[in-house]
């Protein structure tokens, strides 16, 4: 759930959520990182294909609402961004 000044990032696709491009890699972003709208914050695996989830807004990564490897529904909120100037 989002508080005032927070922006939710959602996944349009259902599937399995990942925060890293591959198991041994660093996460795409971490809490506190500044992001642009086109930055990738995670992947969703749908029927063995991978799709990027973009931040969609300029902001700072506040917190993730889903653990890496968890199943997600279409439209589910994945992370919270704090707005930044």
């Amino acid at each position, binding site marked *: 759930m989002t508080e005032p000044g927070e922006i939710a990032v959602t996944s349009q*696709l*259902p*599937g*399995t959520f990942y925060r890293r*491009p*591959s*198991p*041994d*890699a660093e996460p795409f972003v971490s809490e506190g990182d500044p992001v642009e709208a086109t930055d990738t914050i995670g992947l969703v*695996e*749908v*029927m*063995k*294909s991978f799709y990027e989830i973009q931040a969609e807004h300029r902001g700072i990564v506040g917190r993730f609402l889903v653990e890496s*490897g968890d*199943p997600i529904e279409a439209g589910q909120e994945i992370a919270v961004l704090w707005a930044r100037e």
Partner: protein
Amino acid sequence: MKVLVANRGEIAVRVIRACRELDLSPVAVYSEPDEEQLHCRLADEAVCIGPAQAAASYLNADALVAAALETGAELVHPGYGFLAESASFAAACSDAGLVFVGPSPETIRAVGDKAAARETARAAGIPTVPGSHGVVAPAGVAAVAEEVGYPLLLKAAGGGGGRGIRTVETPADLDAACAAAAREAGAAFGDGSLYVEKLLVGARHVEVQVVGDRAGTVAHLHERECSVQRRRQKLVEEARAPALRHETRDAIAGAAVRLAESIGYVGAGTVEFLLDRDERFYFIEANARIQVEHPVTELVTGVDLVKEQLRVALGERLSFGGDVAIHGAAVEFRINAEDPARGFFPSPGTVTALHWPGGPGIRVDTALQAGTKVLPFYDSLVAKLVVWGRTRAEALSRARRALEEVHVEGIETTVPFHLRLLDDSRFVEGAYDTTLLEDLERAPA
């Protein structure tokens, strides 16, 4: 005697049917969201093996072995995908006193690593696509690439299902392609090692079905044509391959049997080749399992391949031999939960209405029913429509009739793509290669 069916979807249903015909008792396994799936209902028992994600359920070897031991199953059939080509799963089954329905762990290892399989084929005197010997260290790729020549393919040694492969057109693209292929291979297979193959443009993908028994007999059931591929994913397969010279058919069948014999092959397997325009053939890989497209071979030979797998696993001899006669032509159309109008984008969802075709020459292998949830966690294949005719032309006219009868609501499927394919003159004439779909996708709808 009980058989644990270590899979889901249409192949689990297919194995359950074979078990029934052999008077074996099928035991299904399921992930939590799969409890209502058809395979659970058709089996005598069903055991939950974990949560939705395949890594924690259908790929969980410990949970599968435990399910077999707990239910008193004596055989384990892996289907295709998931753990079907895992040497360590096959070994875990035999260590637990279970019969794995497939080749030995040693045989799976000999062909499971795709770079090692090339060496196995060369040792058996079978031509391979020009390329590296074994895997190549990242530092050595550029030198090997120069020797092999461009365009080339970078392939994951642990790959399969068309994943972990990158085409490289020029030396400038090599570094980025190496990184991408290794990353995809590492993510999908946990092994990022790569090998190099020359890209054969305009080649046909033809494979040979083999079956071996424990007495050391290996026989083939002729070839299948699998050149209708999108991004290295097969969409349509047929038996036999149209428009091949007799000598070519005999040569690839002989090579496939020779390879299988050289590694003491037991069970059903497939040896895949690329054929260039002059019908020179090159080994690409071998699959130590039942193949998705096995029904086309069943329809033209009359041999039930899954029953054959089970019988061989129980120690029986092959039920056929010699040059098995071919009757007619068969074509399989993969019905995937994908939207061909949106670049084959995945289309999970709940099926709200469903009708499958029937009548002469039609076989539908599926686990889909009205109300079934097509889940995003698993493969997009939801059904295989397989048609048979006395001639290829009859099979194709039945295909059109049957595809037009399919009615699925709630998800998008590849049916419209198949109907369009049936309008393509190269496909209809049987004069196509692996570039067919690239051309079809470039053409306006």
